[in-house]
């Protein structure tokens, strides 16, 4: 690949760089500069003396994090919930995109796509409110069960039900958005390939397996890498708005644990140490999966 000298490159693509500038500034201001605060994971942080004035304590707080019984549980729960979301949730938008792609009626396709997309725009708090009203002890579903003389099920208080609701609501909330990404990727596939395949006598299934899916492969890999990169982040807003102590056993994830320790109990150094560990694992996973993807022939993320 020919590389232009930086100055020429900047001049030639100045409009592109200008477009990217706000995000670059955003990342510098709100992501990179605040990273300085990570140092409190190695300090006995006091609000009054501030970050620079607090004494260094080495790895003491990190050790405390690893010794904490709730941290170990949160770590396992985070992995399980994240993996569950990938296993159950990742194929759904691909399947939906393929199905939508086969629809003849543009009107119906548009309608269906919009309906799927709506939950993505609701905040988790609003969405969780709807879920609670459906699944609570006094919610709609239990109201129907009582009318049918069936026992009330505390969906949000039973570990298995709770996880089921977490996986399903995650799909409902995010599948619409990811479907759109796949549909966009589908439009990039050269229609001549389908025509050629038809001439060769390939039916719809064969076209799907030999043209559509390979055409989507790169997008699938990129989205998968991103998902795996977020393995340590199992969905704070979703879990936080749905869980209660009764399901901590299966639902307490690293994010909620860090929140409780940091914000509810005011132990900022401990929370920062736990959060730092979470970030390092996430970053390592991202690089690893990206490398693997490149090895098996995909372009990867970077």
């Amino acid at each position, binding site marked *: 690949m020919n590389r232009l000298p930086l100055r020429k490159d900047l001049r030639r693509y100045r409009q592109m760089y200008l477009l990217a500038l706000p995000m670059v500034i955003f990342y510098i201001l709100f992501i990179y500069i605040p990273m300085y605060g990570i140092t409190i994971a190695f300090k006995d942080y*006091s*609000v*009054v003396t*501030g970050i620079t004035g607090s004494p260094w304590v080495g790895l003491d707080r990190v050790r405390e994090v690893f010794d*904490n*019984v*709730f941290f170990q549980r949160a770590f396992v729960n985070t992995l399980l919930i994240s993996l569950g979301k990938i296993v159950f949730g990742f194929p759904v938008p691909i399947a939906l995109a393929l199905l939508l792609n086969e629809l003849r009626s543009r009107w119906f396709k548009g309608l269906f796509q919009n309906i799927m997309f709506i939950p993505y725009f609701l905040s988790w*708090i609003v969405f*969780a409110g709807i879920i*609670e009203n459906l699944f*609570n*002890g*006094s919610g709609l579903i*239990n109201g129907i069960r*009582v009318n049918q003389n069936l026992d*009330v099920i*505390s969906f*949000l*208080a039973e570990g298995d039900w709770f996880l089921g609701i977490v996986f399903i609501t995650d799909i409902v909330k995010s599948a619409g958005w990811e479907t759109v990404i796949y549909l966009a990727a589908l439009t990039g596939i050269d229609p001549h390939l389908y025509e050629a395949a038809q001439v060769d006598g390939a039916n719809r299934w064969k076209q799907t397996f030999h043209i559509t899916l390979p055409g989507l492969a790169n997008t699938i890999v990129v989205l998968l890498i991103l998902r795996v990169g977020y393995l340590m982040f199992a969905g704070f*807003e979703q879990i*936080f*708005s749905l869980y*209660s*102590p*009764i399901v*901590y*056993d299966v639902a307490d994830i690293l994010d909620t644990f860090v929140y*409780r*320790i940091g*914000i*509810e*109990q*005011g*132990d*900022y150094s401990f929370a920062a140490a736990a959060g730092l560990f979470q970030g390092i694992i996430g970053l390592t996973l991202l690089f690893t999966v990206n490398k693997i993807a490149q090895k098996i022939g995909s372009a990867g993320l970077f």
Partner: protein
Amino acid sequence: MFRNATKAGSLGIAAVLLAMTATACGNNNEGASPSASSTPAVSPSASTSESASTSPEPAKEPTPISIYSYDRTDYANDRVVQEIEKRTNTKLTIQPGIPWDPEQLNVMTATGKYPDVITIIDNDTFDRTGQWIKTGILQPFTDEILEQTPNLKSLLTQPEFEDLKVDGKYYLLPMRDEPPLGSAGQFVFQIRQDWLDKLQLPVPTTTDEFLDTLIKFKTMDPDGNGKEDTYGLITNGLDKLVSYSAGFFGLPHDERSTGFLKVGDGYEYWAIQPQVKDTLRWVKQLYDSGLIHPDTLTQTNITKTRPVFAEGRIGVTVENMNFDQLVNRITALQANVPDASVIQMSALKGTEGAYGYSKGNGHWAYTALSSQNKNPLESAKLLDFLLSDEGTKLSTVGIEGVHYTMDGDKLVWNEEEKKKDPGFNVNTSGQFHELNWGIVRWSPMVSEFYMKASETVVPNYSQMVQENLDRVNKYLIEPASYNTSNEEWSKFIGTGKTLENEFFIKAVMGKVDIDKGFDSFVKSWKAAGGAEAMKAMSDAIAASKG
């Protein structure tokens, strides 16, 4: 008292923070005006009202003071606020819209920008006051300040607040509770009297009778709709129900005390005492019999259980003993069940030994001067004024001649004038002005003045208060210490509480055997740091008792 704590609120922290920071720096002119004189309410000795009201020198600029408190309306040009400002020569900034969510204050302190005067709600998972005194977020009411603030001094130097001193200094103004000193801690069992009457049942007095009563509530169709759709009880969590019931089995505990009791020569934490097993067995019986409303399992916020209770299908709620809230509870219930009535119950007898509700410490939450307060004396004088008879009356009923007039000893409201001032917010404060609670005290509900004023709207208010107080305070037990704090314990309580809550929930739901589970809970509780922390706390309590 938790009026409005929501998870949504927690997630909105960042936005509120920005707003707080902006207003704290900006010294906006909120609030507005005036008024008069009267009830002690705070403490018998806090009766004089000279201090702040007479002092301002005309030439001096008003002192800007920013205040953090909960659940505030936007006072705009409220005349009561303006009158307080006038009489104390201050310019107040009281941020509106802060829900009942202490986490916002945690975040503010973490950023290093916090208002001059802050109200702090402690709970049993985070010893804010202890940690913030230690880290220097709060500054003390110095002797020099106390010399010039007689009402504040007289409150702080009451013997029951002696153990609030840290290194010989007072940092915290304890906000006196609604009930009189020596009453039960806040959460008590409250039962549908109309259901008892309908089923011709007496008010249960023992834990066994209570179980039988609840079974009848569930099976004998007390709401008369022909369906078996009623429940025995609702509250904000199975784990909480265990702690609310521990007193019936002899364990003095409520969230506002240390939870320590005398065991042998030392002091120990209530949750690892063997009586907890009896409490768990009893709550499990309620659970296994299907008497506990399922929302109890998932709602940790008591405000969310209120509309469910108001539907009229539940016999008992375990709730705050605040009398105004009892009136609200009955009113909300009567919208669905016109002849409904609710009474607060005496503690149930669950053991042959001493039992009862745990006697409360007489206060909940604190007001303190932050270390960023540049005008501690003026701020203390403001608090002193609000504690005085004059300040109490002004912040409760507004300005005489404007918001009310006196017809002999009877108060007559001027509803038209009240409507002009946003602080008279019926949703948060009934007929009274919002500033009467949450700044230096909670509503003085048992003061004669407050009761008389309440009777203009609720005719039998005084009688209702007295009857409920008599029942609730009939059987009380006392913890070993209310306010003693200790660094090791302060660090451990978050972990300890999580272990405790999870064990209680599992035991009640039958996921662990109570006896075996209890032994292993105590073991892991001690191993997680509880043993050392409890010992340190025991020593601290022993030291505080001399």
